[in-house]
């Protein structure tokens, strides 16, 4: 078998994942080419890549989702491979085909495998043939609202609407009763169309109190298919993951082997090559059900890297270059525990509304066993056109408890000023006794949010009180006792002042 030399990679993405891929390229002496929309001229991936080229207006449909432009830039820049990252065109078989037709190596699975697995309904048909357990639902996309209504009555409520070409929670809606179905279908289709360029959706029975646990697989072109264990991704909001960890607190070695074996079986059946993820729902009795295959690198891949010591992006590039993996399942060992927190530009206590805007202050967490994969920097303006993910904070600990302690410390260090982020809610989640005990499902965050929000409401009231008292003073009510002489902790005040330069 011939090996394909990869010397220059076009990264068909933006944000933290583009930065992650550029770093992997640099570590292997591979040149990197960034692309950017008009909204991303100052984005970090543009600053970090060796070369960068504009690809059009801010909306992704006119830039990051335009196959012809990406292929043309790759050819013009002399790239020999294209890494799609996640989202955008990462699971688009037509993009993989267009790359191949232009003589570019697509860093991902073959188009046929993307089609077979990337179409969630086709993947469900394969899993059924292999006898892998799965959640009841449609094996084909639903064509019309009328058909959806008829099928929904058969499946029963509550049910889930999911994007056939989806992932990352986009185009996914929970429908509790029939009256919500039509509106939910419309929103799911709109989101799916905007995010994946395909608005097809399917229906699936809703499993109560499930855990979302997924298995990382790696497959080379020489017949080796292996798994790197699981990631627990049950801490979610709006069906989007917020905190991920490996290993899962409920998976033991035997269950890991069974889930891993099922994942590898599906990958082999689909002729899968490169890195991929097989997602499962796990019920409270620890039965697992096949959900879907993500034919790409996952956002949360770093937790697997931290516990296995395997650089997944490096492996993706090696596999794309047709190198053999060079190790087997028996060589995979897991050590310690890793947790990832997603730092999103969102207001967690304001209905998770996106919070675009300028980051006026930023101090990232550092220190022992802390990793930050970020696309943001101080002075950066978060555009309103793309995903809210700004950065991922990842820690490793000798065991889960140590990792939680370390994450608590790291979140306390991490400061972002100027926009709202998920940092405060992440800090409250990792401090929650049920999180520490590993007692949670995908419902966990929805359940604890009202209490967290009311705590936040109190803080908001305290802020109003302070502001009103300051104004009361300013209007001449000099009733507050005089400040004591300057004996305060100078470090603390100095530090606070540093953050006032907004």
């Amino acid at each position, binding site marked *: 078998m011939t090996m394909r030399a990869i010397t220059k990679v076009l990264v068909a993405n933006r944000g933290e994942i583009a930065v992650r891929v550029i770093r992997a390229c640099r570590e292997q002496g591979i040149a990197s080419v960034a692309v950017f929309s008009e909204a991303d001229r100052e984005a970090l991936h543009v600053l970090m890549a060796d070369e960068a080229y504009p690809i059009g207006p801010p909306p992704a449909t006119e830039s990051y989702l335009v196959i012809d432009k990406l292929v043309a830039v790759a050819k013009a820049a002399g790239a020999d491979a294209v890494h799609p990252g996640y989202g955008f065109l990462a699971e688009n078989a037509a993009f993989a085909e267009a790359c191949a037709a232009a003589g570019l190596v697509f860093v991902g699975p073959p188009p046929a495998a993307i089609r077979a697995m990337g179409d969630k309904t086709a993947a469900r048909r394969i899993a059924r043939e292999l006898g892998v357990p799965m959640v009841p639902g449609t094996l084909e996309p639903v064509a019309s609202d009328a058909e959806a209504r008829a099928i929904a009555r058969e499946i029963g409520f509550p049910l889930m609407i999911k994007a056939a070409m989806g992932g990352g929670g986009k185009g996914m809606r929970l429908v509790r009763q029939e009256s919500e179905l039509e509106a939910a279908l419309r929103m799911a289709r709109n989101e799916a169309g905007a995010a994946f360029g395909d608005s097809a959706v399917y229906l699936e029975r809703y499993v109560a109190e499930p855990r979302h646990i997924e298995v990382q697989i790696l497959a080379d072109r020489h017949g080796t298919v292996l798994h790197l264990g699981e990631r627990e991704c049950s801490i979610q909001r709006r069906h989007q993951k917020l905190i991920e960890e490996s290993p899962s607190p409920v998976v033991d070695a035997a269950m890991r082997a069974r889930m891993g074996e099922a994942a590898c079986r599906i990958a082999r059946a689909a002729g899968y090559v490169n890195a991929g993820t097989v997602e499962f729902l796990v019920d409270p009795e620890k039965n697992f059900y096949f959900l879907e295959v993500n034919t790409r690198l996952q956002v949360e891949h770093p937790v697997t890297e931290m516990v296995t010591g395997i650089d997944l992006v490096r492996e993706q590039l090696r596999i794309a270059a047709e190198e053999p993996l060079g190790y087997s399942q028996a060589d995979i060992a897991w050590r310690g525990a890793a947790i990832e927190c997603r730092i999103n530009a969102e207001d967690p206590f304001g209905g998770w*509304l996106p919070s675009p805007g300028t980051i006026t202050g930023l101090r990232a967490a550092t220190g022992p066993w802390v990793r930050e994969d970020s696309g943001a920097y101080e002075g950066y303006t978060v555009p309103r056109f793309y995903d809210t993910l700004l950065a991922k904070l990842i820690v490793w600990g000798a065991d889960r408890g140590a990792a939680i302690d370390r994450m608590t410390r790291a979140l306390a260090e991490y400061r972002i000023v100027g926009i709202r982020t998920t940092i405060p809610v992440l800090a409250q989640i990792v401090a929650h006794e049920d999180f520490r005990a590993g007692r949670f499902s995908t419902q966990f965050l929805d359940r604890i949010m009202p209490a967290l929000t009311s705590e936040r409401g109190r*803080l908001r009231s305290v*802020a109003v009180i302070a502001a009103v008292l300051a*104004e009361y003073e300013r209007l001449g009510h000099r009733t507050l006792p005089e400040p004591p002489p300057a004996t305060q902790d100078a470090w603390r005040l100095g530090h606070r002042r540093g953050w*006032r330069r907004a």
Partner: protein
Amino acid sequence: MKFVATIDGQAETVEVTGDHGRYRLTLGGEVWEVDARLTAQGIYSLLIDGVSYVADVTDREGACVVDVGDETYVIQVEEATRYIIRTKGGAAGGHAHQVLAAPLPGKITHVAVTVGDAVKAGDTLLVIEAMKMENEFRAGTAGTVAEVRVQPGQAVNAGDVLVVID
């Protein structure tokens, strides 16, 4: 003394009495007993029901920026009479009148109401797409739709008035 504090586009009336560091404030229908000290310029120590808060209050372009806990809030504070004159009635007018302003920049993807529609609290008014998410906005109070200032496909900036309910 009465004030109106505006935070995240919402105006709230706050009444203050007391002196020498001990105050009673009424806000959001609740009474707060507050022991306050200015520990350095702009840095307040507040004791409320035994819980200690340190609030860092700075002035930025006429608004108060308050750092408390791990959060930062931007709050406009005005003496109530001034606020009422400036807004010609404002929130203190007592009239159940709801103005839905865009809380974030984005694109209108769906408008669910037209002028004259009767809405209940919780009814969907419109959907704004921003950062790849569809965000649904619902009526906070029951009433009649008096104005719809946007249409699907339109881009909006934060603060733009979208729908007015009387």
